[in-house]
């Protein structure tokens, strides 16, 4: 199962998780990480804001796309990054298609489980757009700020 890891150095492919995976329901049932690195998988129906204390203990958060049409995890990822300041990996799992990859990266995902997906297709899709209108979780400067900078330079 290929995982794409996206950083400012580019897109890397590997198959390793960052640590041992624990589901949110396991956590709630009393399974607690002790030593080592751990990942937390969270259903897309959860309000991640209520998990702000828990997520800090994990090296990666896994968010779910049960169907590519179900876009709830985009909101979860943005809240994790922009409101809770989560710095670990946020990984997309499920129906992860290249045509949604650019949105995922903008929403704060930096890892995508793409299964047997076409790596080059993902690479192309992630960099399909040079500019973006909105502020989101990827730190990209939105178009209105680029315009302002251009005016200052002129």
């Amino acid at each position: 199962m290929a995982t794409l890891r996206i950083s400012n150095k580019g897109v890397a492919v590997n198959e390793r998780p960052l640590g041992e995976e624990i589901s949110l329901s396991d956590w709630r049932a009393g399974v607690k990480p002790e030593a080592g690195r751990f990942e937390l998988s969270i259903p897309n129906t959860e309000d991640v804001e209520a998990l702000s204390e828990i997520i800090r203990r994990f090296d990666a958060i896994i968010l779910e796309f049960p169907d590519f049409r179900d876009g709830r995890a985009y909101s979860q990822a943005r809240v994790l990054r922009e409101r809770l300041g989560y710095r670990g990996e946020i990984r997309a799992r499920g129906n992860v298609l290249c045509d949604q990859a650019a949105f995922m990266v903008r929403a704060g995902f930096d890892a995508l489980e793409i299964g047997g997906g076409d790596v080059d297709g993902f690479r192309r899709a992630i960099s399909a757009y040079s500019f973006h209108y909105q502020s989101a979780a990827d730190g990209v400067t939105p178009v209105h700020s680029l315009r302002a900078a251009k005016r200052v330079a002129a």
Partner: protein
Amino acid sequence: MYRYDEFDETIVRERVAEFRGQVERRLSGDLSEDEFKPLRLMNGLYLQLHAYMLRVAIPYGTLSSRQLRRLGHIARKYDKGYGHFTTRQNIQFNWPALIDVPDILSDLADVEMHAIQTSGNCIRNVTSDPYAGAAAGEVDDPRVWSEVIRQWSSLHPEFSFLPRKFKIAVTASDRDRAAVKVHDIGLRIHRNDAGDRGFEVLVGGGLGRTPYIGRTIRAFLPEIHLISYLEAIMRVYNRLGRRDNKYKARIKILVADDVEAFRRAVEEEWEKSDRPRLDFPLEEIMRVRRHFAPPRFEKLTEESASLDRARRDNADFDRWVATNVASHRQPGYAIANISLKPIGKPPGDITADQLEAVANIAERYSFDEARATHEQNLCLPHVRKDDLHEVWRALERAGLAAANIGLVSDIIACPGLDYCDLANTRSIPIAERIAERFADPERAADIGELKIKISGCINACGHHHVGHIGILGVDKKGDEFYQILLGGSGAEDAALGEITGRGFSSTEVVDAVERLVGFYKSNRQGGERFLDAYRRLGPDPFKEVLYGDVAHQQ
């Protein structure tokens, strides 16, 4: 008008390139129709009953002559020589071949147009008042905010896979020409008691199977916070909107469930949000605003002697002015509406030649600008009264001088079973036959404002719920029947029509409408419209007119 800069241009061009690649993968078989479907939908490409249909965005309905000519070119080169204006100020082409669609999008990009987000479960093309910048009584120019919303909502990373489609409309006038109360979000720009400008935010209006009038969740939002507040609404909807049932997935269901809880959730989300980062800065709003500076109007007197003379000399022109021309804020100017409802033709259709004719007229007489209205017509926003007669003659030569704006034959109808694979019944032939029945212009003018809206199925694309007379096609054991609703309105006095009773056959329904109109004419008081008379008299006498005789026979 707004003009693209290098950033807007690059985004639209990159979109075309991306879709060209996707179409190639579909044509080579790398993508199945199932995999391709969500991608084509994000570019406005539907698979209809007989062929693909491409819906082109006309942001807030504004069109330059150059854009109109390009639409004419597309109609001629890639379609059967015509296009169809929709109820959301967009234009549809009903016969493009898949292999041509990337070229069509590229042709559109040349004139700063696209088909982004004209379908799919995302924030759709924003709509507004077609009289923006022209009508008196505006608090602000709604196009400024519509353009800001267009940019913010384009390829939004968080809100492109919502539970269902999402429509936003903006008005800045007390006269609602954008139907803001029947949109997922309706924005009304106004001033508060302190004189500051802001938005009344309505949420959860909509038609379809379960119609609702939008609810105000915030009476006054300072204008600079528009985007952060929209983000808060969208996030609450993305999280909590139903995804288990397509027919309960629109935001109206979530709002109707508990409007107070919804309002609280939005306010809480907004309070927590990083507003300075999300809101578009004032300097960007001002940059956009400069694009909508008023054109260089001439200093004219309000009265035009040449117009008065031409009206006296020509009864047809006089009638057209009386029905199709609206008053302008600038002395000596007028707003000229172009009806796309000529008697006996499908509502909203326009030929390539006509698109070019409108382009020429707009270029010469209306500061290079035309607008699409949500009632499937066009208007020329800034015409000198002295020029109205020449404009009318040019429109007449193009077959575009129907004098019926707001009248009984100015009907909104969905494409119906003639084109749409959701429809149960035909809509266009019913609209054509009603228009033919009331073809006498004297009679239509005497009836006055009467909005008839026809949908070919309960999805309500013809807005039958908000017609003064609404007509809903239903399939009964393979036969087409038409139910009649009365008392609806999509304007500032928004109301949902009530179903009167059993449906009529396609041959009976025109007679039924005529009986209603006859009853109104013999019972109206003063300058009362059909809708006013209905509201005063209540539904019972109108039902009696519809069904009384039948009850006797049975």
